[in-house]
């Protein structure tokens, strides 16, 4: 610090320049970038066009009782297996509804159908589809059945008889385990469709078994009908203890592989052989079968599904007894 008589504070110093400099630094600092952008020429455009399906491809469809994702997840490896072992261009396609599935079989859009026995019976009836194999489900069941479920805290409905007057949500009018078998059970117990306060079917494409369970759990419907094993699909998303099974239907033939009418029998035979060659004792095959929720695929024919055909007819007759104007099987077709 200068001292003495000659010292005078210099008041001419102006901080303007410093402030401006710092301000510029501040503004400049806010413009920093952290990435390098990859240039894309958005002006080079063309219309997209998907490749048309090959004429010689073999379409494989799984009845959409679950979502497409589940269908894909369960069967895409099996489809790959078929592709590899038959030399055929097998592709999995995804109809949205049971009806569409049947219709596509009838239209020849689905060559190999994997469906429940009820659908098969109708497809055989309507479109001359023919069964050539059936599956043995996990647990070794060659047959399967349906279940009547209620919410665990529902004290009013504890038996099949209690279902009278209740609101019933079924999977689909064409569902075997999710509707037809349950309807047969109710008919056996003297409960007719008109005895229910409401019979409804799960909305939308796919995922119908899950939707029934969730709707009952939500209290939207009093009872639900699903095929046995459907609860396991939701086991990781709901607490199984919250659902109570109040009745089970009788055993009926399991799911069936059918070839559309007009499919080259040799192709059917190649596919059937490949499917039936899957051996659960082989690790690779077991993985494919397990993912498709099967234990084995065995040869079958149309006669094996007569019990289902019989049940359908019974239901149709009961329906006619009440409503003679109904023509569609089960009276459930739109």
């Amino acid at each position, binding site marked *: *610090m*200068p*001292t003495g008589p000659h010292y005078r*504070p*210099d*008041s*001419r*110093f102006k*901080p303007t320049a*410093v*402030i401006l400099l*710092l*301000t510029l*630094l*501040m*503004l400049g*600092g*806010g413009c*920093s970038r*952290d*990435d*390098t*952008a*990859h*240039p*894309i*020429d*958005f*002006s*080079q*455009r*063309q*219309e*997209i066009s*998907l*490749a048309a399906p090959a004429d010689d491809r073999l379409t494989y469809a799984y009845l959409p009782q679950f*979502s*497409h*994702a589940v*269908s*894909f*997840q369960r069967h*895409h490896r099996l489809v790959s297996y078929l592709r590899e072992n038959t030399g055929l261009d097998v592709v*999995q*396609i*995804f*109809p*949205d509804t049971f009806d569409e599935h049947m219709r596509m079989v009838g239209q020849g859009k689905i060559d190999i159908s994997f469906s429940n026995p009820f659908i098969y019976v109708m497809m055989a009836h309507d479109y001359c589809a023919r069964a050539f194999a059936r599956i043995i489900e996990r647990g070794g069941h060659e047959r399967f059945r349906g279940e009547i479920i209620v919410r665990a805290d529902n004290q009013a409905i504890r038996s099949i008889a209690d279902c009278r007057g209740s609101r019933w949500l079924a999977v689909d009018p064409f569902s075997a385990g999710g509707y037809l078998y349950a309807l047969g059970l109710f008919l056996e117990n003297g409960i007719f469709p008109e005895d229910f306060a409401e019979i409804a079917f799960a909305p939308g*494409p*796919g995922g119908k078994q899950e939707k029934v369970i969730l709707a009952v759990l939500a209290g939207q419907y009093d009872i639900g009908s699903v095929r046995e094993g459907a609860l396991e699909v939701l086991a990781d998303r709901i607490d199984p203890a919250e659902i109570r099974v109040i009745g089970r239907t009788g055993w009926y033939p399991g799911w069936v592989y059918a070839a559309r009418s007009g499919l080259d029998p040799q192709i059917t035979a190649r596919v059937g052989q490949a499917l039936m060659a899957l051996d659960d004792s082989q690790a690779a095959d077991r993985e494919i079968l397990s993912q498709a929720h099967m234990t084995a695929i065995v040869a079958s024919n149309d006669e094996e599904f007569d019990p289902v055909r019989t049940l359908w007819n019974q239901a149709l007759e009961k329906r006619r007894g009440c409503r003679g104007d109904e023509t569609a099987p089960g009276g459930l077709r739109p």
Partner: protein
Amino acid sequence: MKWPKRWPRVARRLFRSSIRAKINLGIIAIVLLSVILIALATSQIVSHALVSEHRNRGIALAANLAARSGDAILALDFLRLKSLISEIMATTDDMLYAFIQDAEGQVLTHTFVGGFPIQLQAANQVPATQRSSVRLLTDGREEIFDFAAPVLIGDTKIGQIRLGLLRHKVSATTREVWWAIFAFAILSVIISDTVGFALARNLTSRIRLLQKATERMLEGHREPAAQPPETVPAAKTVASGAASGRPSLRGDEIQQLADTFESMTAAIERYIDELAKSKAVLAKSETKYRRIFEDSMDLIFVADGAGVLLDINPAGLSLLGYDRADDLIGTKRIAGLLQDRVEAERILAEIAASGFVRDRECKLATRDGNRVEILLSMTARRRPDGLVTEYEGIAKDITHHRQMLRQLLRADRLASLGQLSAGVAHEINNPLGLILGYTQFLIRNEPASSDKVEDLRTIEKQTRNCKKIVEDLLNFARQTGTSKTRVNLRESMEAVIEVIRKQLELDNIAIQAHYDRELPDLAGDAEKLKQVFMNLLINARQAIHKGGRIVVNVGLDGSGQQALVTVADDGPGVPADIREKIFDPFFTTKPTGQGTGLGLSVSYGIIEDHGGTIEVAGASPSGAEFRIRLPLHTEGDAPA
């Protein structure tokens, strides 16, 4: 203070600026720096957060779409796929595009109008094992975050979702944050500078008060200093601080400084008063001792440890024959002033041993070569380690005293000799008278041709010589009668010179006589005084022997109370060792038979009889000078 030239001019100017300016600048700098640092950190954080949020949002949107589009892809439900991407486009305004690809990368549906940009198709691919992939793309104008999310069924990828989100929204948000911070910075600077200005003004005004008070103190004003304005009442603080003698601890540092300053001022005033008193006492003491030093008739000196003179008083200068102290101080040593070096060494050794000498008789050598007898007392000052740092001493001139003592001794001796001589002379005078009478009687009775007459005349002559000696002895012993009349010394001297001039001319001796015409007559025996003058002139002629000069002065001495007669010659002078004896009877340097040794003794007796003094001074080569002082007025005489 000079600042290094290499400093920037701004820095030099900054350091020369006032405290107020510095405080303001400091506050601005601190606030700006803080804001800049905060802004930089915040911008980074915000930018990262925004980008991260942007990415996460894009990833979430893509993943959500992927989760919802699986069934539609599998079913190749283009309507649903289109609905899905349209829905997601509607959820946000910064999405540039959305499209869905199948497992082979083929575009199933998209939101572009006018065709699909083909380069975009493979620009971002995500494997099935990865949840998402984000890539920054640009069309040259804007940057786009491209998000790819796989559509998985289990572990199998059946397609992928691609979304394009514009980045400019992130940048715009970041810029908004920046502008907010910038506005905050400006506001902070304004507020802090306002506050700082007020604080600095308060601070500097109080410092300036203190500065003014200090300047007034330096100018010699001793009233209480002005207190800076403060919440603490100044008068109370000052009063308490001043009264207690220690500063009040209330208030801030400036207030405490002011209090301390007050206390310091009071303390300084007390010290100044005490100092003034001490100074007065010291000055008085200094004056007293300086006066003693300056006015002392004795030589007083101070010398350093090496014996070199540091100070000497005027009496000492006079005694040593110097006019200026500078000729001695710093140049002369004490030992060098003493005439006898051996004696000097002995004295210094004694001081070294005992620390002092007291009343040691020794001789000083004056500047003109004379010696002065002194009585020396000297002390040495020592440091704790024994080293002598200073000598102090006092020397008393005892030359005159010693001379008086010697004269007394000599007078006493001469008086004894006079009484003895007078007794002998009285006893011899009468028989000599008889011898002379009978001799003259026999001469008269003897025929002129008788042989006895010659013998008798020889007896008569020698008897007369003896009688002359006896008369001289009686004159020396003042036993002869003195008839005092009014004597004109000039006339007496002129008469004597006239008698002896012829003889002087024969010896080729010039004589010069100077007379003071103002010299009055005095009472005395003119004949005896002539005899004294004659003795002195004859002595001078004999001392010169052949060729020389005699200078006679007759006048008044310095005091004007005595007549002074000097007779000086340019002969060999009187050796110092015989000066004490030359007035003794029968003392002579002449060969036996050529002098009686009574001339100067008789002269001494006559001058003593007149109440005066006679002394001899000088030595070769200046010759001898006899000085006779005679009182103008003797006891009982009226002034002439």
